[in-house]
């Protein structure tokens, strides 16, 4: 209630008719979706049984989306071990992507032209070709080189010797393919973070006598994180789903496990739902983690940190409750 001098004036809120209509339409659409998701269909068979001498027959129905099958396979050993492979692959490929991406970003900013050009070419190549093709490439490279030897060309110096045939197992192939590809994207994200840090910060660090590497580690990177983390969270979530391409190198991950099962029992939709539900669950967990990491690195950048989801929920509930309370009092007043 607003007061205007001595006379109390009632404030009538605007009625948003459009919002009510939109809300109604969406509610109906949602109800239809839920209805069809949980509808049952006849199987064509009937089940008959005799009660008190009379024979009763009724058709047998099944969940249209095979929820019983979904439930049966959701925690089956094959699906869970596929999920584990997906999680491991995501973690290792992202670890490679982030560390190599950071290195490439730092190389891009190097004063040495050869170093920065090399970094540019890397990004150009790995972003410019489909990741599926890259996976197939690594899958077949062992046919080209059975072994590789790292050393100085034309000199008799050897650093390392790798048997590629033994190294490129399906899992390692997927790790290399996805990790190297990810590094190209991560390098652009890291670079945008590094150049977002004010030049004055670098001058201040330098004038304290910090070396270039100290300035990078202690001053630039921690501040660049604020810019780097949100898109990196997206990259992790995106990687989680991109791992399903590892089917190309015959790695059995989450989707591969589902495929294996449905190619035997033809329950295609329920098993796709099983895989999708797991992807959704992991994505939800990752998004929550991302929020807290972002909050951590926002320290000092904002005068007051943003609320946690729980705080926000509490505020929303409080806001709605207050609205109801005031709405009821206006209703009573009129």
């Amino acid at each position: 209630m607003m007061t205007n001098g001595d006379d109390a004036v009632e404030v009538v809120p605007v009625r948003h008719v459009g919002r009510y209509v939109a809300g109604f339409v969406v509610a109906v659409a949602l109800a239809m979706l839920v209805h069809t998701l949980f509808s049952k269909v006849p199987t064509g068979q009937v089940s008959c049984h005799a009660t008190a001498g009379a024979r009763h027959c009724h058709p047998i129905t099944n969940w249209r989306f095979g929820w019983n099958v979904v439930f049966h396979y959701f925690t089956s050993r094959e699906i869970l071990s596929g999920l584990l492979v997906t999680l491991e692959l995501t973690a290792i490929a992202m670890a490679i992507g982030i560390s190599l991406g950071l290195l490439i970003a730092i190389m891009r900013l190097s004063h040495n032209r050869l170093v920065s050009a090399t970094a540019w070419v890397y990004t150009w190549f790995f972003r410019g070709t489909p990741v599926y093709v890259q996976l197939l490439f690594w899958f077949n490279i062992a046919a080209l080189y059975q072994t590789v030897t790292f050393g100085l060309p034309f000199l008799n110096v050897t650093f390392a010797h790798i048997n590629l045939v033994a190294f490129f197992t399906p899992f390692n192939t997927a790790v290399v393919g996805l990790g190297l590809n990810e590094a190209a994207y991560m390098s652009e994200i890291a670079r945008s973070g590094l150049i977002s840090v004010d030049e004055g910060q670098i001058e201040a660090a330098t004038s304290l006598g910090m070396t270039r590497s100290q300035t990078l580690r202690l001053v630039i990177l921690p501040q660049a994180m604020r810019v780097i983390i949100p898109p990196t969270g997206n990259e992790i979530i995106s990687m989680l789903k991109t791992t399903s391409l590892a089917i190309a190198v015959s790695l059995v991950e989450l989707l591969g496990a589902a495929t294996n099962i449905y190619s035997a029992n033809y329950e295609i939709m329920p098993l796709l739902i099983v895989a999708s539900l797991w992807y959704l669950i992991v994505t939800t967990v990752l998004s929550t983690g991302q929020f807290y990491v972002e909050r951590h690195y926002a320290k000092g950048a904002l005068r007051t940190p943003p609320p946690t989801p729980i705080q926000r929920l509490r505020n929303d509930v409080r806001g709605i409750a207050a609205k109801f309370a005031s709405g009821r009092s206006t209703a009573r007043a009129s």
Partner: protein
Amino acid sequence: MTTPMDATMPMVEAHGVHKSYGAVEVLRGVDLTVARGEVTCLIGPSGSGKSTLLRCINHLEKHDAGELRVDGHLVGYEAREGKLYERNDKQICAERSRIGMVFQRFNLFQHLTVLDNVTIGQVKVRGVSNDAAAVRARELLARVGLVDKEKNYPSQLSGGQQQRVAIARALAMEPKLMLFDEPTSALDPELVGEVLDVMKDLAKSGMTMIVVTHEMGFAREVANSLYFLDQGVIEESGNPREVLVNPRSARLQSFLSKVL
């Protein structure tokens, strides 16, 4: 070569210092002498090269020609057996760590608390222990009047408070020379005084200071000598109380008529 221990030897000596960015000659033969324990004010119009000169003195930039000595040493070089050896990065960092610099825009580390801003250089550059660094940091924060702010982040402080933290951060390195580049130019007028007061205290304690400023009152009151830099050369210099009252060159006269 003179030994750095000589108390009569100037802290900074510049002879014919030149600096160009590409085709633009920013410093065109600067001569300047800063005695130990004295405050030198550097004034001049925007773009005259004041910041560039300070940046050459602590080797954030490399001058192209001329002789520039800090504490008796050639900046960026070492004279041995009649030859000049360019110093490596580590030696340059060590040299720089003993020259404090305060910036117009404060440049506090945004991701660190006030206390960490003042300890990080001590710990990471000078190798002081965390505890000893914190003790010294608290002393310095008390000296600039900010005892209760050590847990705050820079974004939570006023401009004047931030600049005082920046001074404490520089002092934590136990500098032999302090460079101030327009330390009050980004401040609201009512906050200028608190920063100038800290600088006056510092001057009284015997710190050698070079101050780029437009605060003529501060120059008149505190400075032992004043240099007027214009288009990359020192146009006029001397005792601030004489130079500011009776400017000889037409350029200084017109500059003073604009800033006073």
